[in-house]
């Protein structure tokens, strides 16, 4: 069993640390429930540096979505704090964009593709000329320039998720949160979309937190992978993905190092599940 390639952040040497882009400290979330509170996230502490691409994996039902909602300011944590570029997140921050898993339900079916991408910009107060520019650019970036006047339901699932990505990109966020964005698209489309996201991340100055249940995807995409435990969630392990920056669906996935990392992450997740079974888990006390 390969060892984790790198210990967590602590090893980054002395000197003044640059301000993290996203700083999560002691995040805890318990849902009140009907007399039986459910502890979804127990204690999460991690940070994303400016421009990083970090993937979060964990066993299913491990509170990934809860975590993401707390980060996006869509849900208040029970305790702990989230900071975006040094400012505490209390509601949805203006320099953060989200791509949801359910593309079919996160796009407005009554708006065209163009209007879907433009809507957040109107609300943001972006000028008309600049808006048009951003919409054109972001649709071109996801390869959908020709579909600007279509409605989302006229497009395939993969194309719809591209629209959602274009909308997030046009918003010009500092941080891009992606919640299992490719879980519902077919395998080939998925590969294309993964490369698209890598490409966008490298071209734009954006920090990406990518939540997935797919270990291969996490290792393929990320610079770092955080492995979560089963609920109530803690940070189980963390690994730096020391694969070359230039990634390719064929070559990267053939790389022995890819297989090692993948196996390591897989083992960690198995361990996370086993821990739960042994301790009987459950949201007690």
């Amino acid at each position, binding site marked *: 069993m390969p060892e984790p390639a790198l210990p967590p952040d602590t090893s980054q040497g002395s000197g003044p640390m640059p301000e993290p882009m996203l700083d999560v400290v002691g995040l805890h979330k318990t849902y009140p429930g009907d007399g039986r509170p459910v502890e979804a996230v127990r204690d999460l502490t991690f940070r994303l540096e400016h421009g990083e691409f970090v993937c979060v994996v964990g066993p299913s039902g491990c509170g990934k979505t809860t975590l993401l*909602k707390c980060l*996006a*300011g*869509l849900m208040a944590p029970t305790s702990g704090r989230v900071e975006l570029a040094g400012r505490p997140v209390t*509601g*949805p921050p*203006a320099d*953060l*964009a*989200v791509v*949801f898993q*359910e593309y079919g*339900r*996160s796009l*407005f*079916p*009554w*708006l065209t593709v163009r209007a879907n991408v433009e*809507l*957040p910009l*109107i*609300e*943001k107060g972006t000028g008309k000329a600049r808006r048009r520019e951003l919409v054109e650019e972001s649709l071109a970036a996801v390869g959908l320039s020709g579909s600007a006047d*279509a*409605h989302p*339901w*006229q*497009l*395939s699932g993969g194309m719809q998720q591209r629209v959602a990505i274009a*909308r997030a990109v046009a*918003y010009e966020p500092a941080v891009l949160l992606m919640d299992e964005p490719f879980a519902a698209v077919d395998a080939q489309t998925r590969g294309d979309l993964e490369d698209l996201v890598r490409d966008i991340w490298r071209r734009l100055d954006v920090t990406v937190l990518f939540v997935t249940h797919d270990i291969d995807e996490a290792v393929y995409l990320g610079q770092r992978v955080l492995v979560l435990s089963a609920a109530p969630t803690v940070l189980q392990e963390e690994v730096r993905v020391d694969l070359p920056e230039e990634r390719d669906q064929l070559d990267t996935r053939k790389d022995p190092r890819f297989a090692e990392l993948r196996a390591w992450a897989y083992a960690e997740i198995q361990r996370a599940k086993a821990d739960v079974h042994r301790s009987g888990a459950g949201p007690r006390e």
Partner: protein
Amino acid sequence: MTAATAPARGPGTAAHAARRAFRALALPAVLIGVWWAVSSASGSYLVPPPDVIAAAFAELWFSERFFADALPSIARLLGGYALALALGIGAGLALGSAPRLRALTEPVLEFLRAVPPPVLVPLLILLAGVGNGMKVLVIVSGCVWPILLNTIEGVRAVDPVLADTCRAFGVRGTRRLRTLVLRSASPQIMAGARQALSIAIILMVISEMFASSSGLGFTVVQFQRSFAVPEMWAGIVLLGLIGVVLSLLFRRVERRVLAWHTGLRAATRGE
């Protein structure tokens, strides 16, 4: 991927249009024919043949009578309907987005909806007199419920993912109301509005049958009392025609407003 949707049944050719017109008019033509045969065979004074009714219709409604009786009725109908739409959608948006308020008001709303609006006429005459105000109020009091209750349902059913999307991108206030809430509730709102339209026509007539001296409902009753049978029939036919025209107009509006919904449903079924 694109063909599954609306344009499949485009404008079509002239032959196509002729076929459609034939299909729409064939049955009415047959029915009028049957009517003709039956009425001339029986010779009943109460069931005059279509040509007599048509003559009475032309004489009656292609005169200033149309402006004196029909037009004010239609104006009250549309006014009451518009008022009910504004009231129903407005209150529906408020109640639909406030669960506590909704729980509080629901029993009362159900009760009020269950009261048959015609029984309100005597009450409204006392409160609002016998003028236009009373007649419009009768129409509003019957129309508003299906619109209100459907709007509430529609607002409650807003997709949580879409709501989260709005929040995440900071879309709020009136823009949220317009682009998210109203649009996603529009299928239900339109269903309520369609019910309300037929209720409005019924109530327009009923409101004019009480203590009234003009209007379509009044005209029909007056002709009936004076045994002007063909004219009475002409009044009924006009009411029917108004109903048909309004429902055609409604369908046009609905097709525009709900184009996305029709397309979305077709696309979902196609997969």
